[in-house]
């Protein structure tokens, strides 16, 4: 069974440009998470989806970040415009609604120059 798939693996963009990250969760996992991991720190939750509904997005900077999970499967996280401080690893994870089977993807490393 395939794990959580994320793309791209690396992304380098200039500041003020837009960028998007894609995540395909494990089949059957209702819950999907996006985490932000700054260099040398632990991940922090940006947003959590239960199927199509964003149930916890309190840490998502809504002025420049947006996310969607159409049809309750794949998800996209977007930043527009990107700032230098957005350079980090963006991790996606999925789980069953109970939290069982919590699995992370390999993340996207974003560098903003």
């Amino acid at each position, binding site marked *: 069974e395939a794990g959580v798939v994320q793309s791209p693996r690396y992304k380098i963009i200039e500041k003020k440009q837009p960028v998007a990250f894609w995540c395909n969760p494990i089949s059957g996992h209702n819950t999907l*998470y996006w985490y932000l991991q700054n260099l040398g*720190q*632990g*991940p922090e*939750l940006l947003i959590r989806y239960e199927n199509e509904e964003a149930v*916890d997005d309190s840490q998502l900077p809504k002025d420049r970040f947006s996310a969607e999970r159409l049809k309750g499967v794949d998800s996209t996280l977007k930043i527009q415009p990107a700032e230098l401080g957005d350079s980090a690893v963006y991790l996606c994870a999925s789980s069953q609604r109970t*939290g069982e089977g*919590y699995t992370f993807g390999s993340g996207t490393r974003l560098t903003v120059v």
Partner: protein
Amino acid sequence: AQTVTQSQPEMSVQEAETVTLSCTYDTSESDYYLFWYKQPPSRQMILVIRQEAYKQQNATENRFSVNFQKAAKSFSLKISDSQLGDAAMYFCAYRKTFYNQGGKLIFGQGTELSVKP
């Protein structure tokens, strides 16, 4: 709010020796989950071991075991017979139970473990 603290930014161990990584946390909940994750350079978070707070018995997974002290809010990871492949960043994490709106993992700052041959 719940917090997780790892006070050891870096640890080193000789191959085949034993090392203990420390973690403390703060919560007002009585039931919750605690985890240790390993993050190698590939960046994927790999679950090492998990502990349910209502269980008094410490969890064990092969060479990995925990010392869970609920009253002290302490959750340390012991790695026995350390191997070169154990070298990675280790994160302690907390999660509420499903019935208490669980889902979000709260991570500590991480401990970088190096293994010397």
